[in-house]
């Protein structure tokens, strides 16, 4: 950091001002939020400190701006936080009006202490410390205000609001916000807030990998909030009561956008563009909309009617969804002629990867890939159970296939995985669920050759593995054990070792740039591909990823497309990368209470059908769980720099 004047971030003071430099100040500052996309900050004031980067920064004015911004987040539910902020704003107003005293500065520090000691939530306990830092370390500037030698006036500012959970969420949902609504029995408002960033709340509430819960401040205390299930509660409540239509734009904008693929990315982009007033047509190859959410996730995890309901609501806003409509070759000029000014390519990653073993290339009955198997199953194809099925792979698709086979009536379901359980990429609760249902897992075993006789699968030649040194993924590399070759018999083999995107060919002179792994190249700021007017996002850009990442990509693409059609550049923002969002200088006493639990489908019903396994919160249960939220909102305001 070459230009740091002062920092009190996380309570660690670094002071490089002229005449102030002390020994300790040579130390580097703790990472603090910084503006991105070419913007600069003169100073940043956030929940955990004050950082000054330019000598000319106006700290007293920034302090007032910061207080004005945190006043909007202060909920008013406890006596001290909002009133304390108001008291401070009143003091600064008096100062600016020439009615302040130097003794007010001590009063400011007392108010900060009182609020921090008494506030109910993590926001109130932490938000005021930087004000105290400013008054303490920039005292001369505040005294100058008191004496009338300095003015408090507005500069150009930016504001960012986040929380550890919000930052962890790919789609940046306002998690403390929607939880607070549930706590206050306002489930519909909660759902409205969720939908601003996540248009498939019932789907995500069931299937999300919930990185937010790993970031929850309560995680290390008594277990994280069940954030995923709270989202599901908001969605289920509305479905049970009465579904209100999604907000539809008041004024329509000129312009039509084509979306290729109706998966989470495509749907998110389509709805957000529609909400901005554009006409949107979604083209889907399959007879069912929803992409991987429809054909990649079995019913016991995500009942189809939940997805259909949420897609139906999107359709009701005027988004056209054309099913059974594959686009062979993408010709942007052709789309333009039909009135589409932009195109969003979101075809996902639906091609199963090859195992790379002998005999795999020979087409044979009894060998399928996992995505194809799940797709057939979800599209209603009858799959007759056989005696023994082998599933190759350790990811979520492998588990989905295995648990589906149990439900289809296969007597013997076994997973082969080349590493050990510790390296399995599937979610732990899914692995445990599979085992509960009788799925066997054979670790440290890899296939060598698919043996087939006259077009029919006969057996799999396998080899035992042992774990060596960690590879580039950080997991221990499996190495074959010489002489451990053996034969595994089965009636069906499902290979589930990953998926790839199959990108449609473009007809434009300039072809679509792709990465080495076959995914589409996009500008991360705008989501535009190498072809003007064609944007892309979701699995076909990232490779196989989560539904919420796809939704986030769709949201960003809608922004990018809207900016492109209006000829506007992307705005700046604050990055919290590397900043410890959990850290705060004062924490309240938290009474330990574990998360509320939900019922699960009884075992006898699991092996005979595709009924949903996990239940949801009751109304009261959701409100109880929501009470556990510590409301760790973090606000940062920056004075724009030169």
């Amino acid at each position: 950091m070459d230009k740091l004047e002062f920092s009190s971030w996380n309570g660690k003071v670094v002071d490089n001002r002229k005449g102030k430099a002390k020994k300790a100040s040579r130390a580097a500052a703790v990472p603090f939020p910084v503006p991105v996309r070419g913007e600069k900050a003169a100073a940043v004031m956030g929940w955990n400190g004050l950082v000054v980067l330019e000598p000319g920064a106006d700290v007293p004015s920034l302090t007032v701006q910061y207080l004005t911004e945190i006043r909007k987040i202060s909920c008013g539910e406890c006596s001290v936080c909002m009133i304390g902020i108001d008291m401070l704003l009143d003091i600064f107003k008096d100062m600016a009006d020439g009615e302040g005293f130097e003794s007010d500065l001590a009063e400011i520090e007392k108010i900060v202490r009182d609020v921090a000691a008494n506030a109910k939530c993590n926001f109130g306990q932490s938000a005021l410390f930087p004000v105290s830092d400013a008054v303490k370390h920039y005292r001369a500037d505040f005294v100058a205000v008191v004496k009338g030698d300095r003015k408090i006036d507005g500069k150009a500012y930016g504001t960012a609001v986040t929380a550890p959970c919000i930052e962890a969420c790919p789609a940046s949902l306002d998690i403390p916000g929607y939880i607070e609504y549930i706590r206050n029995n306002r489930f519909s408002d909660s759902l409205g807030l969720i939908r601003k960033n996540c248009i498939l709340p019932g789907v995500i509430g069931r299937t999300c990998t919930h990185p937010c819960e790993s970031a929850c401040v309560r995680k290390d205390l008594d277990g994280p909030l069940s954030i995923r299930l709270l989202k599901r509660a908001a969605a289920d409540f509305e479905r049970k009561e009465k579904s209100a239509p999604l907000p539809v734009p008041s004024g329509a904008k000129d312009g039509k956008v084509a979306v290729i693929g109706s998966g989470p990315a495509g749907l998110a982009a389509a709805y957000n563009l529609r909400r901005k007033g554009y006409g949107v047509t979604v083209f889907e190859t399959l007879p069912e909309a929803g992409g991987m959410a429809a054909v990649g996730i079995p019913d016991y995890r995500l009942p189809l009617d939940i997805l259909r309901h949420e897609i139906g609501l999107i359709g009701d806003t005027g988004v056209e969804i054309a099913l059974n409509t594959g686009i062979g070759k993408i010709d942007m000029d052709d789309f333009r002629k039909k009135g589409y000014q932009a195109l969003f390519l979101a075809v996902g990653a639906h091609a199963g990867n090859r195992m790379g073993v002998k005999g795999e290339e020979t087409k044979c009955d009894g060998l399928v890939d996992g995505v194809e198997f799940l797709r057939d199953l979800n599209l209603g194809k009858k799959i007759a159970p056989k005696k023994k099925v082998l599933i190759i792979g350790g990811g979520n698709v492998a588990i989905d296939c295995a648990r589906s086979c149990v439900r289809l009536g296969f007597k013997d379901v076994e997973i082969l995985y080349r590493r050990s359980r510790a390296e399995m990429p599937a979610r732990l609760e899914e692995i445990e669920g599979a085992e509960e249902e009788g799925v066997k897992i054979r670790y440290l075993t890899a296939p060598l050759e698919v043996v087939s006789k006259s077009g029919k699968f006969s057996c799999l030649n396998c080899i035992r593995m042992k774990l060596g040194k960690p590879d580039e993924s950080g997991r221990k590399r499996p190495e074959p054990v010489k002489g451990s070759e053996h034969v595994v018999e089965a009636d069906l083999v499902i290979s589930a070792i990953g998926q790839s995107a199959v990108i449609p060919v473009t007809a434009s002179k300039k072809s679509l740039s792709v990465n080495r792994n076959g995914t589409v190249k996009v500008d991360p700021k705008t989501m535009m591909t190498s072809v003007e007017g064609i944007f892309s996002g979701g699995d076909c850009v990232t490779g196989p990823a989560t539904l919420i990442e796809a939704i986030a990509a769709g949201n960003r693409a809608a922004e990018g497309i809207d900016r492109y059609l209006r000829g506007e550049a992307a705005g700046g923002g604050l990055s919290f990368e590397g900043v410890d969002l959990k850290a705060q200088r004062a924490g309240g006493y938290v009474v330990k209470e574990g998360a509320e639990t939900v019922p699960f489908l009884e075992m006898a019903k699991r092996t005979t059908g595709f009924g949903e396994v996990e239940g949801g919160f009751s109304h009261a249960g959701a409100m109880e769980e929501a009470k556990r939220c510590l409301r760790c909102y973090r606000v940062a305001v920056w004075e724009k720099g030169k």
Partner: protein
Amino acid sequence: MVNIVINGRKEKAKEGATILEVAREKKLDIPTLCYHKDLSPFGACRLCTVEVKTNGKWQMVPSCNTPVENGMEIATDSEKVLENRKAVAEMLYYRYPETEAVREMAERLGVDVFSEKGEEHDCILCGLCVRTCKEIVGVSALAFEDRGPERDLEEPRIGFDPNACIGCGSCAFVCPTGFVTMEAVDDKRIIWNKVFQMTECAVCGKYFAPEDQLKYISRTTGVPFAKLTTCSNCR
């Protein structure tokens, strides 16, 4: 039972009880504005904050929603607690200087209070009405309208759902500041600006309850409406 030390005295307390419940049972004075013994604790007013020793360190905690634990050391009247309580009362008084309930509390806790009586009846967001409506009445017509980054609300307040309200008046009864008012005009009751038709007692002829409330009782208990039209005095 758990063993605790409260203000230096070894005591036994009921497991699961809150510090406030235990303290009141031992006749220790802890002021509150948002607490009611029949409602779930809310921790809004912060007046009940006491000191608790955890991991060898004294920490401020609201006593109304913190359960006692075995071995817990509690101070309800230390200098720090009294100072802190006064600071909270000062803040409440700063915001609601004309509201009598706040004025009285502030004075009691050592804040310099103007001598003239308060004329205002501000909502101090204690949540007693919200909790009564949900937990006692069971209709949840009242809810907080909180704020956050995506929400646009100048001041937080209590939201009212006229479709859910049955006009029972419990919120007005429990309100500590007189913000929630209930008006009776002839055969009408007005609460939260909603007008309710009152029902005449079949015996004495006095208006005694809103029709909506009796319908609600009938619906939830299964007792026919006609059997509910006698007031409690005549029953």
